Each structure stands twice: as structure tokens, then as C-alpha cells.
């Protein structure tokens, strides 16, 4: 039977597997970069070191976008995984929003240059860490969706846990900000940044919720 065609089928699948792996790599790298960029900003403001990291994250996001489009086109053009491609498409697009949230938060710092008082910096960092952990667990869950469906629920559980922690920290931080002596304009400005970082965790949790359903569908 059409041997070259079969070889082609496996070759194409292999290439696409690599692309999907790369897409996940980009997201997980971006999360780590976000963390170091936030630390750099909290330490010394928008220094060169911060700008360099921010640009790195932008580049990663662009590459992620390209990969996503390429994967989506191939899935449909070559009618691969007809049953799950809708889900894969949803997964990639939602993950892209997480990527966007990471990028957006750093853009905010670079453009608006918020002045974060010393007493809030530690909590900002804690919030950032928690958001990054949510994204990292999400990447694990998403990788598991492709390779080891049963592990998806374990990783998703962690996503949910970190997201709740992030919510707690963000509420606490917002209370501290609004109970402080800062003027209202600065309070509102700081709140925007708390929310932007918290949004990363929220978006990651949205993806995890979808993943839960996709995983159940796949296991039927």
C-alpha cells in the first residue's frame, strides 16, 4: 500500500509534534522571563536589563503566534486529528491569550513606569511568582493533553491551586494599597498593575478549565 504516503503521514505528524512542543517551550520560557523582568523592575525600575527582557518576551510571543498559525493551518489542510482539532485549536488560542497577558503586563510597566513603594514590592513579587507558577503548571497540563491524557487532571489541579493563591495575594495587596497614605491616583495606578499580573493567573485557569473538558472528551 502507498508506502511513501504513509511515510509522509508519519513525517508530517512528527514535524507537527515538534512545532507543538516548540509552542509550549515559548510559553514556558516567557513565564520565566516575565519573572526575571518583574524582579528587575522592582529592584531598579525600567533599566536596560528590564527592557532587554521585555523585548525578549515580545519576540517569544511573536514566535509563538507564528507557530500557532502554522500548526492550525497544517491541522486543517492535512485533515489531521479530525476529532480533536477543534479542541487543539481552542487550546492553542487560549494559551496564546496567556502569552498575551504576560506580554501586556510587561508593556504596562515599560510604558506607564509605575512607582511602586518599597513596602509593596515583596508582595508584588510574590504575586508575580504565583502567576508564573500557574502558567508553568498550565504548560505541563497542556503538554500532557498531547502525550499523557491522564496526567492532565493532576497538572490542572495545580493550576487551580496557584490561581487561588494568586487571588488571595492580589486581594491582600489591594487592601494594603487602599489602606495606605498614598494619594488616590497612585492607589488606582498600582491597582491596575496588581490586576494585570493577577490576570495572567486568571487566563491560565480559563485554559485549564477548557483542558479539563477536552481531556474528558478524549478519554471517552
Amino acid at each position: 500500500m502507498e508506502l511513501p504516503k504513509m511515510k509522509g503521514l508519519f513525517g508530517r505528524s512528527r514535524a507537527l509534534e515538534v512545532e507543538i512542543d516548540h509552542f509550549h517551550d515559548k510559553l514556558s520560557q516567557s513565564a520565566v522571563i516575565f519573572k526575571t523582568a518583574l524582579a528587575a523592575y522592582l529592584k531598579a525600575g525600567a533599566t536596560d536589563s528590564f527592557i532587554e527582557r521585555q523585548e525578549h518576551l515580545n519576540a517569544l510571543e511573536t514566535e509563538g503566534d507564528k507557530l500557532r498559525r502554522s500548526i492550525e493551518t497544517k491541522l486543517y489542510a492535512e485533515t489531521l486529528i479530525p476529532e480533536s482539532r477543534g479542541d487543539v485549536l481552542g487550546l492553542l488560542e487560549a494559551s496564546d491569550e496567556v502569552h498575551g497577558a504576560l506580554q501586556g503586563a510587561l508593556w504596562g510597566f515599560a510604558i506607564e513606569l509605575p512607582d511602586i513603594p518599597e513596602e509593596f514590592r515583596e508582595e508584588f513579587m510574590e504575586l508575580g511568582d504565583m502567576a508564573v507558577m500557574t502558567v508553568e503548571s498550565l504548560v505541563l497540563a497542556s503538554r500532557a493533553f498531547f502525550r499523557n491524557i491522564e496526567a492532565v487532571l493532576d497538572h490542572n489541579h495545580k493550576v487551580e491551586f496557584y490561581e487561588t493563591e494568586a487571588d488571595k495575594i492580589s486581594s491582600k495587596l489591594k487592601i494594603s494599597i487602599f489602606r495606605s497614605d498614598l494619594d488616590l491616583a497612585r492607589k488606582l495606578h498600582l491597582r491596575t498593575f496588581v490586576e494585570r499580573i493577577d490576570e495572567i493567573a486568571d487566563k491560565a485557569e480559563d485554559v485549564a478549565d477548557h483542558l479539563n473538558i477536552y481531556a474528558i472528551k478524549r478519554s471517552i
Partner: protein
Amino acid sequence: MEIAVLFFLSSGLFLGWALGANDAANVFGTAVGTRMVKFGTAALICSIFVILGATISGAGAAHTLGKLGAVNALGGSFMAAFSAAAAVYAMTKVGIPVSTSQAIVGSIIGWNLYSENVTDTNALIKIVTTWFVCPVLAAVLGASLYKLTHVVLGFAKLHLLRLDAYTRVGLVLAGAFGSYSLGANNIANVMGVFVPSSPFTEFRFMDLVTLSSVQQLFLLGAIAIAVGVFTYSKRVMLTVGGGLMPLSAVGAWVVVVSHSIVLFLFASVGLESILASNGLPTIPLVPVSSSQAVIGAVIGIGLLKGGRGIRWKVLGGIFTGWMITPVISALICFVGLYFLQNVFDQKVYQSVSFEMSERVLERLGQEKIPRTHFVDLTGQRYENGRALMQAVGKQTSLSSKEESKVLDFAKVVPLTVSIDKIEHLDMEWFSGPQIQALKELSGRSYHHSWMLADALAKQSEAWKLKPKTTANKLYNKGVRQRLEGLYRKFKD
């Protein structure tokens, strides 16, 4: 070949077409329905393998069908195939996946009723039993295979895309195997009724390929199936996918494999010989329904998952269809035969008479059926099997096995062994001593077929049946098939 012969064969081709349109969907329906395999690819593979299966290993199951009722006139075969095809077509139109096996069995019984032949109860029971065994076996196979696949995939942790690629290849391979089994098992439904009245003679192509008359018949039928696949099965394939229960691609693969294994089991002469030579009980070679096998496998998987996904209402409809099909088919056949005989003046059966002569009674005595049962019947002649059975029924009651023996031995089959016809036999099929024994009998005539068999057994060991044991089953079957070939050849 005469035009009339082609005309009569046309109903077999119609049935083949209906089978291709309907049953190919069982093999590739889920694969095409889930868009894992393109329709063109599916149709091509299906056609090639149906043709191979039918021509290479189609003979096994055809034999059992022939035993149920030997439709012995081309007109009768025409109507039997036509009524089965009409029943299948009608049911397909209504949207019920029916079984060509049931339809053809129904129409053979219709022919038996019309021609006042006695339906062989043993063969009928054998066939009907498989209708229950087949879906159950498919369900058990489906459930176990599904569980096994699940465990294996759990360990293998394949990438979703890799799994997709493997599943596609698996579906194509399983589909090819399924098509082969379908051809091997179900060709008997399409062309089996034409076997006793086959118009073909042996065909040799440059000493490379030899096609017996039956194989040519089966090849023709298989081509009709292939045409059915290409022209009509797409629609059925697309609807069969999620009709009964939603299935994943891997689930679809399990269904196709289980279906194919079941069909293969009921058609494989090779497996039969392996089982028999190891002294194990053999599986009857019977044409089973591919629809039943598929539905059995789907239900097996469904029950394994707790039975929630199964649409019981759809299933009920399908079961009803299975009950009605043979009845409808028998009815159409009966009425059709009446018209064919009385309006179109066609011969739909050759009357066979039965005689309870002194020699027959003596022979029955050797088979441990005492002649005292038939004292009043001695020397009587009967116009058909039913008349004989009614007469016998007034005297004594016999078991169904004994009944079929009485019918076999009393049946009048005038035979003459001629050197002319011996030379036209397929020399490769018979052994040297067998031919030698035949030659010694040339010029002699017999009134019953068993007389020739007995005379041959007296002449040579090569024509003797061995004691009835599992190990000897195949040997005896081979001898019997050759004898039946001789009866056809030497018929006056």
C-alpha cells in the same frame, strides 16, 4: 454463454451491489465518517480486498448455504437473489442496517416452500444459531480488545498526533482485513444460490491462474460488490459513523478489527484445518452478517463503559429489522417465483422425486434407521420431499438428523459414469487412485447418488470416509465435496 443466463445472473449482481453499498459501510463507515480515511481510499481498498477474499477463500461458507436448499434452476436462483436484494435495498432505504445473510436465508426458505422442498433443519439451526453467536462473540471481542487497547495506549503514552497517524494506518489495515473477510464470508450470500446452476466452465490463463467455475462466479459477484461500494456506499458510510453510539477513532478501529475477526472465523477454511488437525472443535463455516458483527462490537464497548452512550431505541429498531428481513425476503421470493413460473413461463425449480425402494430401505438399515419404520412405504415414489416427509410422518417420528438421511438416500439422482466426462474432470482436484476407481466404473449407471459413492468406496480406499472424529472431519469433508462434484458432472 446465453443472454438468458446473463439476465438471470443480473439479480445476483443486484444483490452484490446492495451488499457493497450496505456492508462496505460496516467496514469503513466509522473511518470515513470520522474523516480519518478519505472515501476514495476506502472504496479502493475495500473493492480490491473484497474481490481477493471472495475469489480466494469464498468457498467455505458457500457450502453451508448450499446445504440449506440447493436452488437447482437458474430461474429459482434469480428470484432468490432478487428477493434478497429487494429486501436489503428496501431496509437500507428505511435506514436499518440489515443483513444480506438473513435476507438470502429467508429467500432460500421461500424457494423451498414454493418448490415443496424440505428445508434442512440442521443447516437452518446452524445458521440461525450463528446469528445469535456472531453479535455476542463480536461484543466480547470488542470489549476485550477495547480494554486491551486502552491499557496498551496508557503505557505507550503516544503523542496525540502520533496516535492519530497510527490509528489511520490501523484503520486502513483493519479495513483491508475486514473487506477480505467480508468478501470471503458474504460472497456466499450473493452468489451461493447460483453455485448448483453455475453457467461457467473452468478458466485457465497461461497456466498461471486457474479459476474454477465457482471462483469465476464469485469474481463476478465481487466486482458487483465493488461497484456497490463506489456508487452508493458513501452516504451510508457517513451516516453509520455515529448512529448507534458516538465512538472515538480508536474505538472505531476496535470495532472494525472485532468485526473482521468474527467474519474471518466463520469463513476461514485454513483455521478450520488447524483446529481440526489439533483435535479441537471447529467453527461452522457459515455466512454471518457483517452488520450484526459491527453492532455487536459497538454494544460490547458500550456495555464496558456502563451502557450509558448506547441509544437503545436505535438498537431496538435494528433488532426488529433483523427479525423482519428474512420474513419479507421469503415472502417476496415465494410470490415472485409464482409470477416467474406462471406469467413468464420460466423454470424455477427442477422437480426431484424420492423413492423408498427395497435397496433404499436396506441402505437406511445400515445407517441404523430400521426399515420397520417404513413398511407401508416400500416401493412408493414421491413427487417431492415434502410428500415423502408427510408419508413418513404418518408412520413414525424421526429426529431431524434421521429425516435428512431419509431424504438423502431416497432422493432419485440418475447418474451415468462415462469415460468422456471423466476426462473433463479437474485432474488436479482428484488423486490418482480416485480417478482410477472412477475409470473402472465407466459405463455404469446409478439410480441414487449414494450408490455411486458406495461403488467408489468399494473400488478404492481413496473414496472411503474415515471414522467420524474431529481429526478426520476435514478429510471426510474433502471426499464429500469431490463426490458432490461427481454427482453434478455425471447427472443424466
